[in-house]
């Protein structure tokens, strides 16, 4: 029965009680969960020595001083293209993975999936596996139910606080912030960030779960556009499974494995893709022998989205592959080959129906589309690496002041002004020497300084106005525009750059 038969356009969320499962993909997911969570929680606490006047936190987004520190890399606001580049790479990386492996991001790495997995783990640990949880759900309120619920919510809340709490450490010195946070001296924004992230984590991981993916997240829609018939995705081999076996013996085996399995998963809308979905819905030809599916509902019971993969590929499926593990376990028990539910490409369906083996995985994964994405991704990656390693340690820009283009002095000499921006990325103050090349006939003076050396404090940008004067009647003074170049040297490191600009003379009037 479909819940819409009531005719209502709105329906309450149906609770889902995913059953425990073990297998290859579950193990992989536990590993990914552990590693990603560890990265998230530990990263802000890694120290990295950058000298006395710079922060010693390996990964730090210092919004107040507009710096981003990532281990040995330090990014200034004017280098924000690094961040843009990384975001583009992340986007194209998602293209690669989605076109090759469908919604792997959703199934394995998305924070929504990872935290929901963690929350379900807690839930199972406190309230028991699927059947116990269903019973508890249906049971009237009692002291035991209240105790279990409160314990569960408390643990969830602790995880949620830790999640929100870890986030803020990326934006300030972690140990200091932790101390301030605990002694109520941290800035208000720290508390409000933690509060918001705590509430969202608690609600999204504990109560919203699959609703986030089905109704709120834009990714499924975007991902659908990146998939094609060669994309490997979780699907049911209905040509092998149908008609579903109802035999007593099979039931008995299944009952041994999955005692008390429920029947009837929630149907979610089937995406009308050509091929698989229609095949699933089309009438199945009667066969002499029943198919491999014993209708034990193991795949339905483990599904965190509460759907039945045997209805075909569908919008709600995040390709977490847990149904593969569940089904494989059953297939082993009944002595059939694994893979009734498996990573499949739609394009293989006709071959498989004809009894031929599917094409090898690498032919699906390495095809023009994915290789093209990889190439684009690599171009960005190499570009960023190149930019990272060739960018000079002393960073200088010279901007001629154009209002006015030049000034005539009382002796008839012509003077141009330039704003020179000197960026010192070192952890200590550095002198910078600004000179014009020998024999240019031009004179250089610095506003507010005698000599031609200026000191730039550690990790700072200094703006200095310099004047270049051409004597009356000299070529640059009477020409329209002539080239001029500044040599800027940082004597401590011996680094030196030459920056060209333009000198405007009276001819430009």
């Amino acid at each position, binding site marked *: 029965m479909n819940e819409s038969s009531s005719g209502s356009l709105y*329906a309450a969320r149906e609770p889902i009680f995913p059953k425990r499962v073990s297998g290859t993909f579950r193990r992989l997911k536990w590993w990914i969960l552990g590693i990603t969570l560890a990265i998230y929680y530990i990263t802000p606490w890694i120290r990295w020595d950058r000298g006395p006047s710079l922060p010693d936190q390996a990964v730090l987004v210092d919004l107040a001083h507009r710096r981003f520190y990532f281990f040995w890399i330090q990014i200034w606001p004017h280098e924000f293209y690094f961040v843009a580049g990384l975001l583009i790479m992340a986007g194209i990386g998602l293209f690669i993975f989605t076109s090759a492996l469908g919604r792997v991001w959703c199934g394995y790495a998305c924070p929504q999936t990872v935290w929901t997995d963690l929350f379900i783990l807690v839930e199972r640990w406190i309230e028991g596996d699927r059947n116990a949880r269903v019973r508890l759900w249906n049971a009237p309120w009692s002291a035991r139910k209240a105790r279990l619920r409160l314990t569960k919510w408390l643990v969830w809340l602790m995880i949620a606080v830790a999640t929100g709490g870890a986030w803020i450490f990326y934006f300030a010195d972690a140990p200091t912030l932790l101390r301030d946070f605990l002694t109520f001296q941290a800035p208000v924004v720290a508390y409000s960030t933690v509060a918001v992230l705590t509430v969202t984590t608690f609600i999204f991981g504990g109560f919203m779960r699959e*609703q986030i993916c089905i109704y709120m997240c834009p990714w499924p829609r975007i991902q659908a556009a990146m998939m094609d018939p060669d994309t490997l995705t979780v699907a049911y081999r209905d040509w092998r499974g149908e008609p579903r076996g109802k035999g007593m013996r099979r039931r008995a085996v299944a009952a041994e494995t999955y005692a008390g399995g429920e029947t009837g998963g929630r149907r979610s809308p089937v995406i009308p893709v050509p091929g698989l979905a229609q095949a699933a819905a089309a009438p199945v030809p009667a066969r002499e022998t029943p198919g491999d599916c014993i209708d034990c509902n193991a795949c339905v019971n483990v599904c965190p989205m509460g759907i039945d993969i045997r209805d075909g590929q569908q919008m709600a499926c995040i390709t977490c592959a847990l149904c593969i593990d569940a089904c494989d376990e059953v297939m082993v028990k009944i002595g059939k080959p694994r893979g009734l539910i498996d990573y499949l490409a739609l394009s293989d369906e006709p071959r498989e129906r004809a009894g031929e083996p599917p094409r090898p995985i690498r032919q699906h994964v390495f095809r023009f589309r994915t290789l093209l994405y990889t190439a684009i991704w690599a171009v960005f990656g190499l570009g960023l690496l190149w930019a990272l390693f060739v960018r000079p340690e002393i960073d200088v820009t010279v901007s001629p002041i154009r209002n006015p283009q030049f*000034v005539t002095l009382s002796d008839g000499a012509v003077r141009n002004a330039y704003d020179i921006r000197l960026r010192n990325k070192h952890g200590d103050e550095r002198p910078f020497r600004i000179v014009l090349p020998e024999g240019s006939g031009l004179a250089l003076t610095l506003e507010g300084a005698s000599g031609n050396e200026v000191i730039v404090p550690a990790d700072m940008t200094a703006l200095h106005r310099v004047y270049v004067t051409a004597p009356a009647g000299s070529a640059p003074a009477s020409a329209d525009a002539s080239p001029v170049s500044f040599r800027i040297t940082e004597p401590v490191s011996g680094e030196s750059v030459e920056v060209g600009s333009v000198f405007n003379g009276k001819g430009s009037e």
Partner: protein
Amino acid sequence: MDDKETRDPVTGVDTTGHEWDGIKELNNPMPRWWLWTLYGTIVWGIGYAIAYPAWPLVQGATSGLLGYSTRGEVAAEIAAVDARNAEVSATLAAADLATLPVDDPAYQFGVSGGAAVFRANCSQCHGAGAAGGVGYPNLLDDSWLWGGTLDDIEYTVRHGIRNEIDADARFSQMPAFGEMLSKPEIAEIAEHVLALSGQEHDAAKAEAGATLFADNCASCHGEAGTGDREQGAPDLTDAIWLYSGTREAVTETITNARFGVMPAWGPRLSDAEIKAVTLYVHQLGGGE
């Protein structure tokens, strides 16, 4: 349209019973919390419209229970900035500019603040880049009519030049020689002035003009034509001309004289603002 619900055979999903040109609308129910979210936003919207300015009326809009306005927010922000700057601003107002060190926070504050004061009050005549124009002095060069030290500049800003508001305004008046001398005489003086500044000139006329210059002009512009800052008399030997140094312009100046006026800023700007704009102008490249 018929209201009877039917099941779609392909998807097994109920339809809403609506059908247009053979296309049926499936009913995959939305979650109920979605609906509640919608109601929630409506309630929020109503509350927002009550709490904040919302409904346009003839004379503006409803002001909202919280009394919030963007204007008020800007005013509060400006007040906060002023409060933050009060101390350094007071230091600047009381400072002796001539001895204020360049790395003093009050100096830095003055230069940046002075730039803003300049843009708002001075750029109309002197230009956004302070390069002036015909009749409006260029503040970037090294020539000053009334002096280019910090004290001189501050005095000029505070009292202005040749205005009627401030009795202490800098004042001088060049006579209009068109009423006293003949045209040929004026032409001879003009040639002499061109010669003084090393421009192309008629040597014979300039020679004759030298005597006329000594008689009529030297009292203010000096024997050698190097000017006199006490009277704001320009140096005629340099390459800088307030009203252009062409033969025509010089002749016009001698004939009809010039009378450039600058307002007194003392009554309009605060002490700190005057000192700030003084520091700003002084560090533009010509300060003495």
